[in-house]
């Protein structure tokens, strides 16, 4: 929870900086959520907009309790198609309410979900990549937040040292 809030602050600051750099209208009009994979959602998109949580909830119990793992309505399937890399090849995290498919809408509609406290918010390949980097750095993959927070402090102190 705290982690999510922290990252929100970080991303808000970054977004604020971006807003200063770019013209305001450009950001306001642009949709920053990268396009999904494939050509067609598993259900009619209009229907999905209002009913996806029921589908996911139903599938959730089927999977956990009875081992039914059809792909169609699985959260993993949603993520695999809808969370795609941006032009820099980066996957948005759920804490990024501008670029993450789920977060962008949940934030707008003021819906709070706790799915991603446990579930991966991006495809497995992206998670594996992050883990690989942690392993290379000798850091614990469970602690992105701490790593990035300390990194930020380090960077900002370096910057201030440079400016002096």
């Amino acid at each position, binding site marked *: 929870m705290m982690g999510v809030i922290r990252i929100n602050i970080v991303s808000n600051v970054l977004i604020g900086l971006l807003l200063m750099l770019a013209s305001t209208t450009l950001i306001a009009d642009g949709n920053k959520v990268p396009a*999904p994979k494939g050509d067609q959602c598993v259900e009619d998109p209009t229907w999905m907009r209002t009913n996806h949580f029921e589908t996911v909830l139903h599938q959730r119990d089927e999977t956990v309790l009875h081992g039914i793992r059809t792909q169609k309505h699985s959260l993993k399937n949603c993520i695999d198609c809808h969370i795609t890399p941006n032009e820099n090849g980066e996957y948005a995290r759920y804490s990024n309410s501008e670029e993450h498919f789920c977060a962008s809408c949940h934030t707008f509609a003021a819906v709070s979900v706790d799915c991603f406290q446990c579930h991966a918010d991006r495809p497995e390949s992206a*998670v594996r990549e992050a883990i690989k980097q942690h392993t290379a750095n000798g850091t614990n993959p469970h602690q992105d*937040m701490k790593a990035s927070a300390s990194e930020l402090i380090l960077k900002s102190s370096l910057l201030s040292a440079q400016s002096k």
Partner: protein
Amino acid sequence: MNNVVTKAYKLLRKSEQATDTQQTDQSKRSFIGGLVGASGLAVAPGVMLYETASAKPADQAVTNQVRWGMLVNVNQCTEDCNACVTACNDEHGLWPEEGSSTDSQWIRKLTVKDPTTENTKSFPVMCQHCEHPPCVDVCPTGASFKREDGIVLVNMHTCIGCRYCMMACPYKARSFVHEVLENQLPSTPRGKGCVDSCNMCVHKIDAGENTTACAQACEKDGHQAIVFGDLNDSQSEISKRLKDFGGTQIRADLGLNTGVRYQGL
């Protein structure tokens, strides 16, 4: 409310225009892809030690026709080997810090020494997947449950984090997630405030792989000390071994009929 939702989705309109216009049935395609992938994995190396019984179709519920279990041959397990533990951690995305009393450990190597004879044994202990699990009995919300095929799991959607199951488990098999986690693997969702434990690699079983990461790793390391299989099938490797050599349960006195048995204990 509807208005808000409509507005919200307008934001996404652009990214979905492509989705709306084209008609290929991607779900069907990926579903078939999934099945092919699963059966491909089922014929992984070292067939001898796994069940190769036909995989359950993805849309069908597990049944009590099978009861998954594991047999650990203590005589073939060496004290310096930690392969099963490492494999479990890699498979499920567990990264316990050394010496941490709060990080989850789903499987651990135990060294047991008889003080009178000085005889020492080393073997892994994980959730024993009891037929009558005390953790399931005590769980107030029913989040701790036993699947039809004998696997004991935590339904983390209904776990309230009361830790009564940890008090009740005779094997110390369960851990409580004490802090915010990051980079959990898609196949093993877990997070702060809930209890977790060995799930007998349920995602592998459901995909028809019919083995566990620890059993695979042990075999790869050449010890072949862990046999995974169906306890209900008299023709399975695990049942045959149990019949021929027997297999003890840890704390058999509790009458829990564990799904994990030990040979040479």
